[in-house]
């Protein structure tokens, strides 16, 4: 056994001793990345020094480490896909990749990975590309610490920041994305994690998520995106400790949930969104310990949702806490803090003695007849709301929190 191990080790050492480092640069052995790529073998490293490299489409089909020193510029001259990675076990780091081509048929990206695994893309700056980082049919890849910006104006004319398609076990960590169509796009991606990213000012969604089961996204910031964040047709998603902020507009939602089941929304902050959470056809979701603050609508729960649990959240300073479009209520509310609650607590157990009906009559009216919003906070409307609160007749009376908290939770 010991003998075998020694052989194995010596073979490994041999193998690695063959790995060489090639240098590319202005006054280095290789002047262009392409010419160096012809000479490399699997396991070699390519050090690229400062400079501007306009080499069209660079295809990497060997297992190498491509490392930039002081952010050498790879320029696609608005014509080419810049880096195409077609090999596994590859590292790309430290580049400034800019001006990729634009084509709607084959979606060129600044860095595109085809059918691969164990590819790491980190510490790059991507500027003004059609798609930023594009992964398709990938496994075990890491996209980390990249700064991705674009200057899209129209949805049709710009791609996504990080686009992942039909992949598994990806790690998207600590990237900053702005100005793309969707900041991060997941379709048919499973068992992956999105962690500590900041996605701001994208034209459509900060995060766009479809048919992607068993994923988590944790501690991300989604701010000021055209339509917020959208999670659709998925089960087993964990959304923890994210911040959804200032997603403003008619069809903009802090978090848009459509056809989601068995998921968990925990410890997120929803601040100043037109609608913080919009739920449609979602079931068996637990919404726990989140903060809803200064939103237009805290939660819009459509009547097509069932068995969702809303527990121990803070609702503070929202125009409407809850709104719905029907009379069917199959969801439960428990132990939330509602700043509009006007009940009392005689037994001093910090739980209000009177149940709270979070659905105001006027929010139902506005849902059916949006222009009525113009009358909000008028005396007539306050009167209607007050009387409805006392005796719910038009709003579903099982829309109720039986254990509303007297004080806000420290979240």
């Amino acid at each position: 056994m010991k003998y075998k191990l020694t052989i194995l080790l010596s073979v490994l050492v041999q193998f690695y001793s063959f790995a060489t480092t090639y240098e590319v640069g202005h006054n280095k052995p290789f002047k262009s990345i392409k010419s160096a790529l012809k000479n490399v073998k699997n396991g070699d490293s390519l050090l690229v020094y400062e400079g501007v490299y306009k080499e069209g489409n660079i295809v990497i089909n060997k297992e190498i480490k491509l490392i930039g020193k002081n952010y050498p510029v790879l320029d696609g001259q608005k014509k080419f896909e810049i880096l195409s990675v077609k090999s596994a076990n590859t590292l790309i780091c430290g580049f400034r990749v800019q001006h990729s081509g634009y084509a709607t048929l084959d979606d060129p990206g600044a860095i595109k990975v085809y059918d691969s695994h164990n590819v790491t893309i980190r510490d790059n700056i991507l500027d003004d590309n059609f798609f930023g980082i594009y992964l398709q049919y990938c496994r075990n890849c890491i996209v980390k610490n990249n700064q991705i910006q674009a200057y899209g104006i129209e949805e049709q004319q710009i791609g996504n920041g990080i686009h992942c398609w039909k992949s598994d076990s990806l790690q998207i960590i600590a990237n900053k994305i702005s100005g793309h169509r969707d900041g991060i796009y997941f379709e048919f991606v499973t068992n992956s994690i999105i962690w500590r990213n900041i996605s701001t000012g994208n034209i459509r969604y900060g995060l766009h998520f479809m048919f992607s089961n068993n994923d988590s996204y944790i501690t991300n910031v989604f701010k000021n995106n055209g339509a917020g964040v959208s999670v659709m047709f998925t089960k087993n998603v964990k959304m923890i400790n994210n911040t959804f902020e200032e997603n403003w507009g008619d069809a903009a939602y802090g978090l848009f949930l459509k056809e989601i089941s068995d998921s968990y929304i925990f410890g997120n902050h929803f601040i100043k969104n037109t609608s913080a959470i919009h739920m449609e056809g979602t079931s068996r979701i637990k919404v726990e310990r989140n903060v809803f603050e200064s939103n237009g609508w805290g939660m819009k729960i459509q009547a097509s949702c069932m068995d969702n649990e809303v527990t121990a959240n803070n609702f503070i300073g929202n125009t409407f806490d809850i709104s719905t479009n029907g009379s069917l209520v199959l969801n439960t509310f428990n132990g939330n803090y509602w700043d509009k609650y006007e009940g009392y607590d005689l037994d001093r157990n910090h739980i209000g003695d009177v149940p709270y009906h979070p659905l105001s009559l006027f929010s139902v009216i506005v849902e059916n007849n949006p222009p009525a919003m113009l009358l909000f906070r008028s005396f007539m409307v306050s009167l209607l709301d007050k009387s409805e609160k006392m005796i719910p007749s038009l709003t579903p009376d099982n829309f109720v929190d039986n254990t509303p908290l007297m004080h806000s939770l420290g979240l």
Partner: protein
Amino acid sequence: MNRIGKFIVLDILKNKIILVYTLILAVLSWGVFSLEDNSTKGLLTLLNVVLLTVPLVSVIFSTIYIYNSSEFIELLLSQPIRRSKIWLSLFFGLSISLLLAFLIGAGIPILVYAPLDIGGMMLLVGIFITVVFVAIAFLSSIATRDKAKGIGIAILLWMFFALLFDGLILFMSFQFADYPIEKIMVVVTAFNPIDLARILILLHLDVSAMMGYTGAIFKDFFGNQVGIIAAFTILLLWVAVPFIISLRKFRRKDL
């Protein structure tokens, strides 16, 4: 005009009612701000004060004051003073004293507690609402010689603008829910100074909700410079038109 105006202001200030009005506003404002833990809730209570109490007091006090000073007006008319001058000084005297009451009573706590943008807007709107309803009082008191009838008209007008109008709009919006009525709604609000005032504040208080649906249309209209200027111009018209009509009537009236 100066001397008459000054005399009227002093006369009103000597009147205890205006002092009580100031005191009530002050107690209310300081009270709501110190009772509520966040200033937004206090502002909401004050919004109702500005939209209901301020116009009510302005319109009733002014109407009664004008009726009560009919002998004083007749006395002045026997002097070589132009009629418009008398009417104007009466208007300014009433407006200034009611404004003073509002600014001292509600203005100071608003400035102390509320964020500057919302607070400033609320003060501005309160000022306009006060003056608009003084003008409306002038119109209703010149409409009839009968004091009870005049006060009745004033109260009815207040009731219409503060309560009924919104109910009517709500009703209309349901009747025409199938049509794109957003823009028409914006136009219709111009016919009620209280609604106009409320929307101006709403755009600051409920900014997130106003970004949704039709809110965006209102925000587009009232939120930008042009819209705000338009809204205040309309409020100014609400001061000018009733007053000018009353002035023309007063000039020709056989007293």
